[in-house]
């Protein structure tokens, strides 16, 4: 039970990133893999500022701001230098590794139990309950905010940009600016997840981001499959299902660990799970035709 509750809490922490990847991949149709870098960046900024005893809201804001800068960089490389979106993301992600290492000063920094957001915000005695409730609160606030933004005129313009660029240009929308803003929002949310996970595991590690984009992609793909299957059109419902996808993916990983899979194999399991999520529906569909 406790085992699944921790998987649930971790899934909630990862939902912020999942929602960010949903924005880039499903709304803007940009394959953004800055994620690995901006996730670690969120953890790194959090570690540095917590050690300097900054107040928690400032720490979170700074982590998200740092992530958004990474997103803007990828956006600028993509739109100004006309470099393929995938390559732009790889360029920024790779560059960020050095920046993260230099900022952090060493490869691993432990965080003080008393300082983490789950202890400062959580009302309970029990750590696991605090982790669950605080991450749930954050995800609810974030989803509500995002659902609102996507329903505004600005949000419509964002969604239209990914759907038909000729249309948006003709309607006075600067597509490049929109993409940069989208990447900024997505990577700010990824950095938030990096910050939360670092606080959740009580350390920031320079390698914590390796392959994290696959976790996000897998979660969003599970969510998206559910969205298509249920035929959901309302934006807030779609966001909710994406969060569910993130949690589901963590539970799958947690279950595979309980079944005796070696923890060192977790990246392989992740990769195979994503491959299955993407591949199996295509195989089934081909047979149906």
């Amino acid at each position, binding site marked *: 039970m406790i085992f699944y509750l921790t998987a649930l809490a971790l899934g909630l922490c990862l939902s912020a990133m999942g929602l960010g990847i949903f924005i880039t991949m499903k709304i803007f149709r940009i394959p953004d893999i800055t994620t690995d870098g901006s996730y670690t960046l969120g953890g790194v900024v959090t570690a540095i500022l917590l050690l300097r005893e900054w107040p928690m809201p400032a720490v979170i804001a700074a982590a998200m701001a740092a992530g958004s800068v990474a997103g803007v960089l990828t956006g600028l490389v993509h739109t100004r230098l006309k470099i393929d979106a995938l390559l732009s993301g790889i360029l920024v992600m790779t560059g960020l590794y050095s920046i993260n290492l230099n900022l952090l000063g060493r490869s691993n920094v432990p965080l003080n139990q008393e300082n983490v957001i789950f202890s400062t915000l959580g009302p309970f005695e029990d750590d696991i309950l605090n982790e669950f409730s605080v991450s749930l609160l954050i995800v609810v606030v974030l989803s509500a905010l995002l659902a*609102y*933004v996507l*329903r*505004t*005129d*600005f*949000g*419509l*313009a964002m*969604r*239209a940009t*990914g*759907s*038909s660029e*000729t*249309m*948006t*240009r*003709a*309607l*006075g*929308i*600067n*597509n490049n600016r929109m993409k940069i803003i989208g990447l900024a929002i997505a990577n700010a949310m990824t950095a938030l997840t990096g910050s939360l996970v670092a606080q959740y595991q009580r350390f920031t590690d320079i390698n914590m981001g390796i392959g994290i984009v696959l976790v996000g992609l897998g979660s969003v793909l599970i969510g998206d499959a559910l969205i298509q299957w249920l035929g959901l*059109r309302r934006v807030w419902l779609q966001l909710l299902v994406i969060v569910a996808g993130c949690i589901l993916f963590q539970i799958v990983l947690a279950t595979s660990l309980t079944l005796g899979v070696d923890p060192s194999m977790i990246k392989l399991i992740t990769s195979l799970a994503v491959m299955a999520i993407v591949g199996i529906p295509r195989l089934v569909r081909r047979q149906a035709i």
Partner: protein
Amino acid sequence: MIELSHITKVFNRGEVNEVTALKDVDLTIAKGDFVVLTGSNGSGKTTLLNVISGAVLPGGGRVRIKGEDVTDMPEHRRSRWVARVFQNPLGGTAPELSILDNFRLAALRTQPKRLRIGIDDAFKKTVREKIAGLGLGLENKLQQPIGALSGGQRQALTMLMSAMDHTDILLLDEPTAALDPKSAEVVMQTAEKIVQAQELTTVLITHNLRDSLRYGNRLVHMHAGKIEYDLDAAARQQLKMEDLYAWFER
């Protein structure tokens, strides 16, 4: 309203597939003019239209709209004067957004898109009434994704969308080329209504000879990147379908 002077456009300059799309083209279109633009494939009509809209920036020459030099202004900023309907019915709408969402964005063509929810009951009512005017029964499907509609339905809606916000210039690039005759009729009737009601300056590209004699008050024919004929309404009255056909023969 629109002044093009010495417009030149060369695509793929210096490469084996170099194409001169426009050669020193001059064209002045007065306010309220409805120009029908004809010419065979590759004559430069669409490039000329794109130079006006800003989708193509000319290699040489100046573009003026309402007296303002807009030669280097990007497409998305010219939208404050220019509304467009594309040849491809998929080009003018965002398929994943609902009919209502598409109309909302069209209603903000000349305005910034702000962080507030703009679709209220009054807006829904306006859109429903406008769409009911088409007589296609789409007024009860406002929440449907526009991608689920047929090409003809989408093109009719795109035409209506162009009139959702203030516009001076309407650019129609073969809006009915991909449509069946009945849908084409609906789209062109809608266009005529909008043009007349708002006294728009209009440029229509068409390959339909009957349409090119029927609509507008001026006929401009292009050949090999140049304007070959430019007839006013009186001169066009004298023109027969055979004459027009002969223009395409050479």
